[in-house]
């Protein structure tokens, strides 16, 4: 008896309604577009996520590795009812957010990865994700966890999320927090912002190509001296040693 195993392994996706793209002016004065991407665009995103897997600071490594896996799973049909939104400035990939539909009432927020830091880029992208769950998918609540202190400040504290500690989150099983429709309405207009429709030229630029981040992570200047941060204690010791060595050579 032959069995098409792929039919078993591949989850059956529900039809996910489109997220209407929006845009906003960020603190730098630049206009940022947030839009939904298709499966076909995932490989263009993965190449920019991969370098962040070696950035230990602020748990970028954990978040990037998981985002990579989730996006790859979406691309290769190993994740059910997932969606991916991206934030772009002049085509540049600035943030990736994703989540999943659990059922008609509940959404599962997966990750928010800011490839360009600061200026609330990640926060705007997260807000768009919540907008997708509440306004487009019609969810009553979204389950959320944070993997970094920054995420905790941005989601749990800024939105004042409710505890759903009895529900383990899909991201590693920690207790969940929830964004409810009431919390979402409170945030609408303050934390959840943006304008529609996106002007044609802006949207065309965003759709044209996913361009690489303008400030991607680079290998440390001195591999021996840099581990967690540029000026860590080990680095100090090594710099001292190097100076002593230089002095010896000069003599």
């Amino acid at each position, binding site marked *: 008896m032959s069995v098409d195993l792929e039919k078993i392994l591949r989850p059956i996706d529900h039809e996910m309604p489109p997220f209407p793209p929006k845009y906003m*002016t960020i*603190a730098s*004065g630049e206009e940022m577009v947030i839009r939904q991407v298709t499966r076909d665009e995932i490989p263009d995103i993965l190449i920019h996520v991969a370098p962040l897997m070696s950035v230990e600071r602020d748990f970028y490594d954990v978040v990037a590795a998981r985002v990579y896996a989730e996006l790859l799973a979406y691309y290769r049909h190993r994740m059910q009812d997932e969606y991916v939104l991206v934030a772009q400035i002049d085509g540049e990939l600035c943030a990736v957010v994703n989540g999943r539909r659990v059922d008609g009432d509940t959404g599962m927020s997966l990750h928010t990865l800011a490839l360009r830091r*600061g*200026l609330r880029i990640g926060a*705007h992208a997260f807000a768009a994700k919540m907008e997708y769950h509440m306004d487009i998918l019609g969810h009553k609540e979204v389950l959320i966890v944070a993997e970094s202190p920054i995420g905790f400040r941005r989601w749990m504290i800024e939105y004042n999320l409710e505890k759903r500690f009895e529900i383990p989150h899909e991201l590693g099983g920690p207790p969940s927090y929830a964004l409810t429709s009431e919390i979402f309405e409170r945030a609408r207009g*303050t934390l959840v912002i943006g304008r529609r429709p996106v002007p044609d030229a802006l949207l065309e630029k965003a759709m044209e190509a996913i361009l690489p981040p303008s400030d991607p992570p680079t290998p440390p200047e001195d591999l021996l001296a840099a581990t967690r941060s540029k*000026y860590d204690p080990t680095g100090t010791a090594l710099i001292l040693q190097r100076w002593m060595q230089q002095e010896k050579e000069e003599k």
Partner: protein
Amino acid sequence: MRDVYAIGIGITSFTRLEFPLSEIAAYPVMMALKDAGIKEIDHLYVANMGGARVNHQTGLASAVVDTLSLTPAGAEVIENGPASGASAIKQGFLAVASGMHDVVAVTGAERMREVNSIEATEFVATLTHPLAEYIYGVTLPSLAGMFTRAYMEKYGVTSRHLAMVAVKNQNNALLNEFAHIHQAITVEGILDSPEALTNNPFIADPLRFFDCCPVSDGGASVILATREVAEKTGRPLVRLAGIGQATDTHCVHEREEPTDLLAVRRAAAQSFKMAGVGPLDVGVAELHDAFTILEIVESEEVGFFKKGEGHLALERGETQIGGKIPINPSGGLKGRGHPVGATGVAQAYEIVLQLRGEAGKRQVADPKIGFTCNFGGFGNNVVCLTFAREN
């Protein structure tokens, strides 16, 4: 008194630093010693405000001097709130000028991001009056907010002027590799766009997010020495020519005129008098812009502009790097960051760098006199320093 020279400088990145406070204090000393080309000092002054409270570390100076293998040099901590840095430099000056020591190191360090921003704000608020201010929930942003509102009413300063200070200083910080904030911002993005209120929310009305300095970790160091030692370094001679310090009422509400910063005015005047120069001789200044309004007001109180006209000079671009009196080319507290105990020393670092002509892309054109204003409390303990290039 003997003349005193800044012969070496060092700094760490101002950001979140994931290593002990004693390391943050020690690293810039090492850089400053290297810069000065010396290996020994007579004494170490460590400026720090929150080690005991925030980092559970006391006896910081002993830890730093040993970390640097500089024992048996004497070492002690100087605490004077956010003006600790300039106060420590003042102590270093006195030690050399008096003839007690020939070479002293001054380092300022703070590790504030070990706690969250709410706790960090609360920690800084402990410098307010315990019975008349602190117990009622006063914080430095709240005092600055009230001060700003009063200043706006009286002198016509607007939110746009505040935003212009923020934009100027954050753009300057882009030229400073050690600065905390490396983000270009525009007045449109933080004030005019439909999303400006989200990008730049109110913190203490009328002050908004981009009107307030970040909470930073960081350290900075200056080595002070006699002329004899300074000449041996072969580096440009930068003399610490003037020091002024003044206090004001602990409670802000007890001040006769709430829009005056008398301690700034008096400390600056003392510093200029001692240096034998006037405010209009200054070629570059680092002012304590913990909140954007303070840069404007301090620029008036120290005498660069008439009272109530600092914002007009800002409009004319006079405080830009290429302007008549460049203020905060380093990015100031707003852009470089504000690890409270380190700030006064970081200001001195920038001025020495500028006077030497070594400030790279943010170099001001040929300054001969540099000035710093380190603002403790809410203007209740201020230390001003005047530096002069001699060759």
